[in-house]
């Protein structure tokens, strides 16, 4: 069983992020790390390959400046190889532009049975890329998976909903987006880290994928960032004086959040 995992390399969330005032996008010129929300997909893929008794995990990523630090982390966890698309023409790509690049890169992986993604990335997101990738590849897609099982040529998914989960099945190959917490990502071992250095990372440009530069980046983006402003300050919480019935308000509040 061969699984492709789409991973994003993002600025370290531990460092305060900054927006570029000219492009109005997040600065991504420093060292990038593996997006934590993608580590769940990598772990899920590794477990599925182990359960199937064979196959390998291939990573697909798009990042500026040929950045591979985040990919090395996922390779150290146990992925076999990676495809990195890095090209100046990709700067400013919108969700669809990103999906086009990822879909083309995924097509280069021979015999992919399953494509896993996170539901969305942590640094800048629309949450639409997984479905766009599935659309471009003309594959069935399941979102918000909290449990995945492969049975022959069918993937069985517990799909997270507000009230619980739905049991969903679809034929392979398919695109499945996994929620955070679907599995506990393993820590890379030192041996894994050392082995990751010699694992192949195929670095490609837009032209290598057969895409036209006008379809991606700022040129191909169907969106424009008109202005950016500071997030509003957090509002003060609501204070309820307890007259003996405050618990009812708390229950109603929690019920409204659907956490009860």
């Amino acid at each position, binding site marked *: 069983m061969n699984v492709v995992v789409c991973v994003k390399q993002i600025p370290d969330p531990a460092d305060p992020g900054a927006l570029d005032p000219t492009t109005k996008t997040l600065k991504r010129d420093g060292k990038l790390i593996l997006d934590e929300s993608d580590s769940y997909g990598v772990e899920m893929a590794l477990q599925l390959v182990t359960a199937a008794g064979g196959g390998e995990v291939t990573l697909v990523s798009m990042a500026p400046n040929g950045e591979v630090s985040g990919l090395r982390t996922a390779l150290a966890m146990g992925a076999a190889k990676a495809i990195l698309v890095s090209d100046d023409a990709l700067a400013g790509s919108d969700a669809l532009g990103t999906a086009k690049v990822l879909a083309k890169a995924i097509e280069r992986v021979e015999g992919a049975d399953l494509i896993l993604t996170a539901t969305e990335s942590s640094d800048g997101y629309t949450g639409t890329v997984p479905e766009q990738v599935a659309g471009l590849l003309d594959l069935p897609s399941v979102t918000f998976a909290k449990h995945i099982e492969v049975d022959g040529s069918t993937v069985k998914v517990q799909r997270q909903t507000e009230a619980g989960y739905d049991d969903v099945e679809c034929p392979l190959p398919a695109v499945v987006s996994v929620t955070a917490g679907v599995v506990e990502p393993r820590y890379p*071992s*030192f*041996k894994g880290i050392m082995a990751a250095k010699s694992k192949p990372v195929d670095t490609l440009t837009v032209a290598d994928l057969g895409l036209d530069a006008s379809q991606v980046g700022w040129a191909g983006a169907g969106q424009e960032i008109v202005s950016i402003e500071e997030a509003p300050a957090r509002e003060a919480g609501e204070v309820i004086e307890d007259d003996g019935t405050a618990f009812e308000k708390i229950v109603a509040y929690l019920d409204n959040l659907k956490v009860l």
Partner: protein
Amino acid sequence: MRFAFTDDQILFRDTVADLLSKECPAEAVRWAWADETGRRRELWSALAEMGVVGLTVPEAHGGLGLGEVDLVPLLTEVGRVAFPGALVETTAVVAPLLAENAPASVAERWLPAIAAGEAVATVQLAGQPFVADAHVADLLVAQHDDRIYAVPGDKLRLTPQPSVDGARRLFSVEFDAADAELVVNGEAGWLAANHAFDRGAGATAAVLVGLAEQMIAMTVDYVVARRQFGVPIGSFQAVKHHLADAELKVSFARPTVWHAAYSLAHGRTVADRDVSLAKCFASDAAEVVARKALQCHGAIGYTTEHDLHFWLKRTWALAASWGDAAWHRRRVAHLLLDA
């Protein structure tokens, strides 16, 4: 000589720091004080699986076959979280001692088990009255004059002894000669014991640097948050100076610790001097930092309710272990003047 850590060493350090920050928060240290054994085998296994515990075990026995310079950044991370466990004893002292000296039967029995995280080891060298972690150790390596023995943990008779650090328990240990396997003796036994002592002292110095760095971090957080007279107390010069003194001490200790690891790893003849320099600098620095941290916390941390307490106590315990600052300072003087 390139005096900087390699990319791999830095990556190993960051990987361990990530694991420890998630799996060994301050609550885990607090728990270790209260729990019957104070040791969680899963945490040890996670470190072993990563390759930390078997770092110094030869590759032929399932380890990574790496040395002191690779280990030192990891031990600083171990100190930073006040990790409760015998990593100094197992990985810095016992594993290399067995790898270099033990007959094949002893090495084959213990080294693969250490690398796999199945055997925790501890050590008692001559002049060391009590043994840390003997209650959870699967293996004790003990020195009697020129002879070094390996004794299975279940053959030890233990008497608990008071320890300043409730997460680092101490025991006096007895065992029967019939249960002890000889590792090495004679001239080689003395050398092995001396080498083991230097490794333990050097490794403990690295742990102390981590403890000190964390106490400074905790204190900086506190003095920024704690306000008096309408401003954070960290804006007062008197507080700033305490913290600057603390940082200065650690900054001077850190390179001596790295240098000692380098000397040990390369078998330099001055390794004993370099280790003593590191241990006295690190012990002094950590004790000064502990005092400054407690004072800047307005003495919160004097009792167990505040996490700082656990870092203070570990600092006091380790500063006094493997030779205190005064002992090592005398040894530096002796090695320099009598040479």
